[in-house]
């Protein structure tokens, strides 16, 4: 630590050059933060998915429905603690463009039992369950659309007309729920399945998918297999997977986008290494005689190596933390895209990249400084 002063002053030897390098690093890590957050959003929050929760889908395709009669049969499978179901409604509010939020017809009490991470006052849950045309919305969505409890809002259906042929479904907002996980996405709306099933013109008695939780200590894989076996050779076979596996496989459908993001980051970091490596080698070249003096007064080779490496890492950290911090602020403010989140793992990864890139960029200049022959270096000047 006592070398910190020396390192700090050496870093700022050429102010313009160092500032420009730091700014490049800043841009790189700002990009890293933003792209990671977008990538995380594309992965559909697979990181927050629950491995103890299983999802039962129709085997051929996620769009095919399952009979509502399956609920009792799934519940009867040993090791299943609780089960409920949901449907995809596919409506929009006012404009088809506003379809970024989803609506699911569900069974109120059952659903909130299966998703304990969703927090909502008990009386709102009761009020919703008691109002056929009631709905509850996530806090992210309520905030974005300015909705409050007591509002009556029309949702235009794209798949399910009502029995009277109307495509407009009206709901009373009875509650607003939030997630206790900061990464949790709550831009969706829930309404009563009973009402939905009675009021829709077609596909009655069919649900989109089942959600279940296994008992503590039970083997999720064995239970998933047991469920799928039960419906084998029936007209609607099932495919049961953990919520986490489902989220991961769904995210893979976006496919190459993740690849493109990594590609861009690769290009950015490659350039970054070049920029800072060049800065460090220029810096070492300029002060060969100074480094020789350090060795003359008794600095060991390894200390000189450490000092040059530290300079390089320091430049990375200065720019990197600044970029990461700015990215974090932008993401938190929600100004770019609402609902983005910077996971802790990304922040740790970024720190590792800063130190790694710093060491890599500084390595060759530092080795050069370490191997410097004092006599030759001093002779350059004389």
């Amino acid at each position: 630590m006592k070398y910190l002063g020396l390192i700090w002053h050496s870093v700022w030897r050429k102010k313009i050059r160092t500032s420009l390098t730091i700014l490049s690093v800043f841009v790189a890590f700002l990009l890293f933060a933003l792209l990671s957050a977008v990538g995380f959003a594309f992965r559909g929050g697979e990181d927050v998915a629950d491995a103890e929760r299983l999802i039962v889908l129709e085997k051929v395709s996620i769009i095919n429905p399952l009979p509502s009669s399956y609920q009792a049969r799934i519940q009867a499978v040993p090791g299943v603690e609780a089960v409920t179901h949901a449907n995809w409604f596919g409506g929009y509010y006012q404009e088809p463009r506003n379809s970024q939020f989803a609506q699911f017809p569900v069974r109120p009490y059952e659903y909130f039992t299966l998703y304990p991470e969703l927090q909502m006052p008990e009386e709102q849950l009761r009020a919703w369950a008691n109002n056929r045309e009631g709905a509850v919305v996530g806090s992210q969505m309520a905030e974005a659309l300015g909705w409050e409890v007591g509002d009556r809002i029309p949702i235009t259906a794209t798949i399910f007309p009502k029995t009277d042929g109307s495509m407009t479904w009206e709901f009373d907002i009875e509650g607003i729920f939030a997630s206790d996980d900061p990464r949790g996405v709550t831009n969706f709306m829930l309404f009563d399945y009973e009402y939905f099933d009675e009021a829709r013109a077609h596909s009655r008695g069919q649900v989109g998918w089942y959600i279940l939780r296994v008992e503590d200590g039970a083997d999720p894989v064995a239970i998933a297999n047991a469920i799928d076996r039960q419906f084998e050779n029936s007209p609607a076979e099932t495919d049961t997977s953990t919520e986490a596996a489902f989220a991961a496989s769904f995210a893979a459908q976006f496919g190459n986008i993740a690849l493109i993001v990594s590609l861009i980051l690769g290009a950015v970091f490659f350039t970054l290494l070049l920029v800072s490596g060049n800065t460090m080698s220029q810096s070492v070249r300029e002060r060969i005689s100074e480094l020789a003096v350090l060795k003359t007064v008794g600095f060991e080779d390894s200390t000189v190596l450490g000092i040059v490496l530290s300079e390089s890492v320091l430049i990375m950290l200065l720019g990197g933390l600044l970029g990461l911090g700015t990215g974090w602020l932008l993401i938190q403010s929600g100004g770019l895209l609402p609902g983005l989140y910077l996971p802790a793992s990304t922040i740790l990864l970024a720190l590792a990249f800063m130190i790694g890139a710093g060491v890599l960029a500084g390595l060759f200049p530092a080795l050069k400084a370490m191997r410097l022959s004092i006599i030759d270096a001093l002779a350059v000047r004389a």
Partner: protein
Amino acid sequence: MRLLNQIVAVTVLNLRNLPKRLGSSLVAILGVAAVVVVFAAVLSMANGFERTLLSAGSDDTAIIMRSGATSELSSGVSAQQVQIIETSPGVLRDGDTALVSAELYVVVDVKKKATNEDANVPFRGVELGAFDVRRNIDIVQGRVFEPGKNEFVVGRAAQQEFVGLDVGETIRFGQTEWTVVGVFEAGGSVAESELWTDVRVLQAAYRRGNSYQSVRVRLESEESLAILEQTLADDPRINVDVVSERAYYASQAEQTTGLIRGLGYPLMILMSIGAVFGALNSMYSSISVRGKEIATLRAIGFGPFAVLVSTVVESTLLALIGGLIGAAAAFIAFNGFQASTLGASFSQVVFDFAVTPDLLMQGLQAALVIGVVGGLFPAIRAARLPVAQALREL
């Protein structure tokens, strides 16, 4: 003229000096190259996606779906409604047959070759007439499916992108075993991402009775769209939306390309700023290396403007070299690169990246701007260098 000579002379001197500053020059060049590569990658993806969807749409074909449906997947049309449409005015007829194709659109899970994960692949049920309604469908391998049998033809792009779709292979969806009997091309349009089979077979397999999801109609002319729309709107037995195929696919493309571009452009701007820093750094070090030379030139009478211009020329040249390298790399790496993603119909769209000349020109323009901006400030500094001091110091 004298000024021009001066500028040329100083610029030549600068460039002669370049090998001595190879490191920082290379960094500036590669920085710009990286910007252009990323620029081309992102925008060629958006372009390719858009082109795939838009090339599927023509103005004289209409898509008819249930009112309010935003995609074929969420639509539903009954057999009776199809009959009404077939007899409506504005529909092109070949003798007695109306050029109308009622279709069923479902999604099946097929593994993607790239990830080996299940993907939602569109499975379309059509009548043989669909090949007449759409003019650009060509069977390029095998044969067309035989009505009533569990067989299908696969689009060229889907066949390349997904597992197990070669002619002669069988694939199981649910309890039904299907045979791949042919491969079709559709001018690189989105139809090539799909599997096509006999609509009756598909209706039976998916227990859809005698219902459809969309109806495609060849129009007598582009103007017939309004007539057909009006006729159907006035008919109380039917509640549908009529849009031209082009408009339908444009709206399908909008969300994804909007997302790619919305992320892509800010990304480009940020990266360009980073590249400007690289160029600035390179030019400042160029000036500090050449300080004495510049001072000597100034002392024997070269003007500050010549020094300024020559520095900007140098950085622009470096940026342009970087831009060309980036453009070439992007073209080689990405042009025609096949990818697929989840489109607006909740199903996979297979598309090729399209690195167009237009896009490359835009990339080079960005490189030019980076070069000029990156050279300007160091150039001003070089022009202002106090001659006497620079000579003494070095």
